[in-house]
C-alpha cells in the first residue's frame, strides 16, 4: 500500500526545495513528489508538516558495518594484516558487511541510509561495496569501486614506512601493466604460455574491469604531486578515477576539473597531519567546487564517527561551499559518481531512501526523526537510546 508523507519541506536534489510537499512512496520507490500534491486514495497519510525531508545521506569510503569496535582487532573484518599481499584486488568488502554491526544503528541515527564501504590496507585494497543500511537486501552493488591507496601505512596505525609511496606506485604500475598484458592473453596466461605475472588471476580479472572502464578506481591520496601522478596513470590506462582523501587536491583543482575526476574529500581533515597533507585547509571543498570539480564529502576516519557526515557538510557551508552543493555532496553526487542509479534524489522512480529531520539537516541541533530505506520505515532507536532510557528511570 502506498504511503504519503505530507507537509514537509523537501530537498529533492533537483532545484529549490519544495514547500508543503507530498512524497508518495509505493513499494521500494518514490511514486510521486510535488508541492501540495494530493495523496492517492487509499494511501497511508503521514503528517510530517514542519519537518524537512532529504534523500538519505551516503557515507563514502567508510568501514561502516565491517567492524564493531575499532580497537578490538577481532572485530575488524575488512582490513588485512600488513603481512598480506599488498595487491588484493579480488577482496570484496561486501563479504564483510554486517548489517548488525554496532556501528550501523548510530550511523542511521545520523541520517545515513547508504554507504560505499571500502576495504582498507595494502596498495590495492580490494573492492568497495555500495550498501543500504537495511536489515535485509542491503547490497546494491558488490563491486562499486576498486580501492587503491598511495603511501599506505602497513601497520594498523602509525606513519607509513620508508619508501611506502615509491612502493605504492611501483606495485600499481606493475599491476596495471600486467593487467594490460593479461587483457589480450587470458587464455595463454591460464595455460602457462605467458610470462609470469606479478599478481593472481583473481586480481587480474578485477583489474581487467578497471581497464575496461567498468570499475571505478578510488585512489586514496593526499599529496598534490601524487594526485598529478594519478591523473597521468588515469590517462595512460584510460581509468575512471575518483580521488579519496585529497587533502591537497585544491592545489590541482584545475587539473582535476579538466580530467573530470571527482574528489571524495575528508571533510574535517584541515591539519597538516603528514608530509602529504601540509597544505590542508578547511575550505578545500569550496575551492574544488568553484573550480568545477565534483565534490563528495566523506568522513574517512573511524566509522564510529560516520554520524558526523552532515556536520561536516554544515562546516563546509560555513567555509564557503554553497548549501545545495553541500547537501548534494552527501547525497546526489556520490550516487551519480559511483553510478548507483535512482539514488540520491527524491523524484518519481527513485529508490525511496529518505530522512525526515526536525529542522535544517546540516545544523548540529537538528536530528533525524524518521527514515525510510527502500520504501520501508526503519527504526532510528539505538542502543544508546535504550541505555539513556534505562538509566534515566
Amino acid at each position: 500500500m502506498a504511503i504519503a508523507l505530507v507537509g514537509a519541506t523537501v530537498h529533492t536534489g533537483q532545484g529549490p526545495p519544495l514547500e508543503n510537499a507530498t512524497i508518495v512512496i509505493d513499494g521500494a520507490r518514490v511514486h510521486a513528489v510535488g508541492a501540495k500534491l494530493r495523496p492517492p486514495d487509499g494511501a497511508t497519510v503521514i503528517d510530517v508538516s514542519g519537518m524537512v525531508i532529504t534523500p538519505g545521506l551516503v557515507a563514502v569510503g567508510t568501514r561502516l558495518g565491517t567492524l564493531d569496535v575499532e580497537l578490538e582487532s577481532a572485530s575488524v573484518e575488512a582490513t588485512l594484516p600488513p603481512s598480506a599481499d599488498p595487491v588484493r584486488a579480488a577482496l570484496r568488502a561486501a563479504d564483510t558487511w554486517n548489517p548488525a554491526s554496532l556501528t550501523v544503528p548510530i550511523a542511521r541515527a545520523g541520517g545515513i541510509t547508504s554507504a560505499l564501504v571500502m576495504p582498507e590496507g595494502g596498495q590495492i585494497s580490494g573492492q568497495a561495496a555500495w550498501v543500504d543500511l537495511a536489515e535485509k537486501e542491503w547490497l546494491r552493488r558488490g563491486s562499486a569501486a576498486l580501492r587503491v591507496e598511495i603511501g599506505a601505512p602497513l601497520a594498523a596505525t602509525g606513519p607509513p614506512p620508508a619508501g611506502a609511496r615509491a612502493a605504492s606506485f611501483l606495485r600499481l604500475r606493475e599491476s596495471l601493466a600486467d593487467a594490460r598484458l593479461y587483457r589480450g592473453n587470458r587464455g595463454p596466461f591460464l595455460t602457462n604460455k605467458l610470462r609470469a605475472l606479478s599478481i593472481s588471476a583473481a586480481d587480474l580479472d578485477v583489474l581487467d574491469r578497471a581497464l575496461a572502464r567498468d570499475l571505478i578506481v578510488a585512489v586514496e591520496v593526499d599529496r598534490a604531486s601524487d594526485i598529478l601522478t594519478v591523473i597521468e596513470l588515469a590517462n595512460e590506462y584510460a581509468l575512471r578515477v575518483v580521488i579519496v582523501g585529497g587533502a591537497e587536491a585544491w592545489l590541482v583543482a584545475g587539473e582535476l576539473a579538466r580530467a573530470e575526476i571527482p574528489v571524495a574529500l575528508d571533510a574535517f581533515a584541515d591539519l597538516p597531519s603528514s608530509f602529504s597533507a601540509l597544505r590542508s585547509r578547511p575550505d578545500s571543498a569550496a575551492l574544488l567546487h568553484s573550480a568545477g570539480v565534483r565534490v563528495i564529502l566523506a568522513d574517512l576516519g573511524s566509522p564510529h564517527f560516520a554520524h558526523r557526515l552532515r556536520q561536516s557538510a554544515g562546516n563546509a557551508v560555513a567555509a564557503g561551499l554553497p548549501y545545495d552543493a553541500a547537501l548534494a555532496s552527501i547525497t546526489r553526487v556520490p550516487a551519480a559518481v559511483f553510478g548507483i542509479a535512482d539514488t540520491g534524489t527524491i523524484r518519481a522512480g527513485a529508490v525511496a531512501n529518505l530522512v525526515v529531520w526536525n529542522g535544517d539537516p546540516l545544523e548540529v541541533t537538528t536530528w533525524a526523526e524518521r527514515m525510510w530505506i527502500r520504501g520501508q520505515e526503519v527504526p532510528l532507536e539505538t542502543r544508546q537510546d535504550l541505555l539513556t532510557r534505562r538509566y534515566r528511570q
Partner: protein
Amino acid sequence: MLRGVTALLVFAVAALGCGGLASLKSESVPAAASRAPVEPAPAAAPILLRGATIMTAAGPTIERGDVLVRDGRIAAVGAELAASAGVEAIDVAGRWITPGIIDPHSHLGVYSMPATTSNADGNEMTGPFKPDIQAEHSFWPQDPAIERALAGGVTSIHVLPGSANLVGGQGVTLRLVPALSAREMRMPGAPTTMKLACGENPMRLYGQAKGAEPQTRMAEVALLRQKLENARAYRVEAGKPRDFASDALAKLLAGEILAQNHCYRADEMLVRLDLFAEFGTAPRAFHHAVEAYKIRDRLAQAGVGAVVWADWAGLKMELVDAVPANAALLDEAGVRVALHSDSPYDIQRLNQEAAKAMAAGSRAGIAVSREAALRWITANPAWILGVDARVGTLEPGKDADLVVWSGDPFSVYTRAEQVYIEGRRVYERANPGPPRSDFELGLRGAK
C-alpha cells in the same frame, strides 16, 4: 586514513584522582625554579565591544549588550555602557560574544602536527608511573594545530600527557597566546594537575604489548594503591636527595595537585572513588567518563567533575556504552560537566560539540538551557582546572578572554571572528596574517 583511530590510540588519556592527604605540607616542598611565572605583558589598551548578544556563562543572555575591557580584565558587562575617553569602541552589532572556550583535555603541542614519530611526545611509555614528568616540557609552541584551535574560539587548554601510564605525569593549563615556550603560555595561578589512567590503555600498552605490569584492571588498582601509600609516607628530609616522583604524588594527596583521572566505565570510576577515599581524597574530575551517566548521583555527591565527549562512541570496548545524552544527564543531576576534545580536530569545534550534546539532551527529553550548555565549555572546565576565579565567565574582574562570533555560537554556520585573551586580540578571521607557527611559514600556499 587513520585520523580517528590514531587520535584515540595515541591520545586517550589516563588520569588518576586528586589527593587530599595532608600528611605533607605543601610549603615543605620548595617550588622548582622552572615553575616561576613569566612577567606579564603590559596591559592592552581599553576597548568597548558594543551591541552584541552576550552569553556570559554566569547569567541570562543579554541582547544588544556591551563589554568593557580594561587592563586585560572585564570591567563591565551590560547594556548601553558609556564609552569614556581613550576607550576604543568596536561595533559588534549582530555578533555574539561568549567567554573564551576552555578545553580541559588536550594534547596539542605534545602530539603536534605533522604526526611524525618525533612529534609523538606525550606518552612516556617506559614505565607505568611517571608522576614527576611534566607535559609542559614536551609542549611545542609551534604546533600548527594551536592556531586552528584559536580560530575555533579556544583561549585556554589543559595539556596532559597521554594515557599509556597509570600515572602519566603533570598537566598544565595554558593560554593560547603567541609564545616561544609553554612557560610563557602558562595561566598564572593555575594549579598543576596530574594525569592518571584507568582501564584499557595501560592494559593494552603494558600487559598486552610488553608483557609487563599492568595486564589487568586489578593490577592497575593494586599498583596505584602501593604508590599512593609510598607517597603518604614520603617526607623531604635534610641531607637526603629529593624524590620528585614521590614529591608529586604527595602533593596530589595533599590536594595541591589536582588529579585528572582518565576513566571510561562506571564500575571503574566507582573503584577509583573507593581507592581515593582510602587516602582521604577524591579526583577533581574523571575524563572521558563515558559511563558517568550511570553513576551521576554518586559523582554529584562526591563533588567530582566529569569531562566528556558529545558523540564519541564504540572505538574501544570501554566506549561501547557511550550515549550522546551523557552531558545532559550529568548536568541534570548536578554534576560539574565539561566537554573536551582530546583531538586536534574536535578542539576546533567545541561550540558545536556543546550544541550536539545539548540537542541530544533535548532528544532524550532532558531540558538543557543554552546557558548551561555554554558552561560545559567555559565555566565548568574552568572549575575542573581550578582556574574559575580567573576565567570561564564574563564577569567584572575576570580575565578578558572572549570570543566574538559571527552568529549564534551553537550554529554549525557560525565562526569565531575575533578572539581576545586578556584583552588582546589574538585572532581575527578577516585579517589572519601569516601562519602563527614557524613550521607553517611558506607552507600554506596561496589560495
